[in-house]
């Protein structure tokens, strides 16, 4: 009870505020809450301006409450609390801006279906009848199919599971090889097609068993097949 019996001494210590400061803080906070609320309700600005304005009012209200409710900066020097707050805000900006930036780059142009297909081929997931049963370790034999004119060489390839298949073009045509016979599109290891640029090659890992045909998207393009066994 000792402290309480000397109100004058206690009031003189810095950083405690007064009724006036709390009332000012309260009224300003009310205003800074109601303005962005009515702006959003009436949709009176375009999207980006509205976004910037309501975030601005939130920051303004934070500063108001820190000054009038938390009495920041009115403590004795050195201002350790303020120092800590400023460094925390630095970390907050890093985390917020960094997360949004990185994640928007990652999700750019990548639909969720794309992601699944890319994981299937990227991780070389070994499939039997479409069921994933393991992954290939990457030391299978490599087979080569050369596309020249309308003829793939060889027309038929025999391979074992986890082997790789290199498809090369030797002319100046960009090839889009589709899996399955011309009449009926199929997928192979999650992919519907393989595209090969002129005088380049593409490699696929044979992770699905069975005999599979492929055909060029063009009407008279090369067609062929390959058989994958255990």
């Amino acid at each position, binding site marked *: *009870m*000792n*402290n*309480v*019996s*000397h*109100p004058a*001494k*206690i*009031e003189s*210590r810095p950083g*405690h*505020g*007064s*009724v006036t400061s*709390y009332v000012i*803080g*309260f009224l300003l*906070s*009310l205003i800074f*809450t109601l303005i*962005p*609320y009515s702006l*959003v*309700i009436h*949709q009176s600005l375009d*999207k980006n301006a*509205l*976004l910037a304005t*309501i*975030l601005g*009012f*939130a920051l303004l*209200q*934070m500063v108001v*409450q*820190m000054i009038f*409710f*938390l009495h920041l900066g009115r*403590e*004795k020097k050195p201002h*350790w*609390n303020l120092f*800590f*707050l400023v460094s*925390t805000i630095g*970390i*907050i900006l890093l*985390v*917020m801006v960094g*997360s*949004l930036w990185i*994640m928007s780059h990652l999700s750019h142009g990548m639909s969720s279906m794309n992601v699944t297909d890319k994981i299937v081929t990227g991780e070389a997931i070994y499939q039997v009848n479409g069921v994933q049963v393991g992954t290939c370790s990457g030391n299978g034999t490599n087979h080569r199919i050369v596309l020249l004119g309308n003829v793939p060489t060889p027309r038929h390839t025999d391979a074992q599971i986890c082997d790789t298949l290199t498809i090369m073009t030797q002319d100046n045509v960009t090839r889009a090889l589709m899996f399955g016979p011309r009449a009926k599109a199929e997928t192979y290891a999650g992919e519907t097609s393989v595209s090969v640029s002129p005088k380049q090659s593409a490699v696929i890992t044979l992770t699905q068993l069975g005999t599979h045909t492929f055909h060029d998207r063009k009407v008279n393009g090369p067609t062929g097949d390959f058989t994958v066994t255990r």
Partner: protein
Amino acid sequence: MEADHELGGHEAASDDRVGFGFWVYLMTDLLMFTVLFATFAVLRNNTFGGPTGRELFSLPAALSETLILLTSSFTAGLGMLAARRGSKNQVLTWFGVTYLLGIAFLALELREFTAFIHEGHTWHSNASLSSFFTLVGAHGLHITLGLLWMGITLVFIWVRGLDSHLIRKLTLLSLFWHFLDIVWIFIFTVVYLMAFV
């Protein structure tokens, strides 16, 4: 009187240290909220075909929650001034009002949560709702713990009267309460208002 003065100086220095320690805790708590905010900001549109925030949230309800919490922050401040004047009854009155407003806030929030869950929009539904329930729920949990702390402190004050120890507890408590109001401003803006932009 001389002894009193010595004691007062020592208490003040100790108050500053405890206050700073509590401030450091608040800043780390703020970092935790930052991570939850960042998660929400990244995942807010990943609704997996489910309804977006615009279809789910009610802005008037969010505004009432905001105004209730803001007023409770204000009454906590008035209670703190009463504590420094040494007026036990005013402390009990103002913090009693703060307590009731806190309960009202929590009730509104729980009503919103249960309504979502009854409509089948749970934290299992999609990434957007998972991050929503985590962020807003973490704030609600802080409010619940704050109310527990406030209730216990008020009972102590009621029974034992105001002493310097309890005034220090109230100081930290009001700091915590103002802090939760500031975090809520950003929940109101980022979660609720931005869903309608």
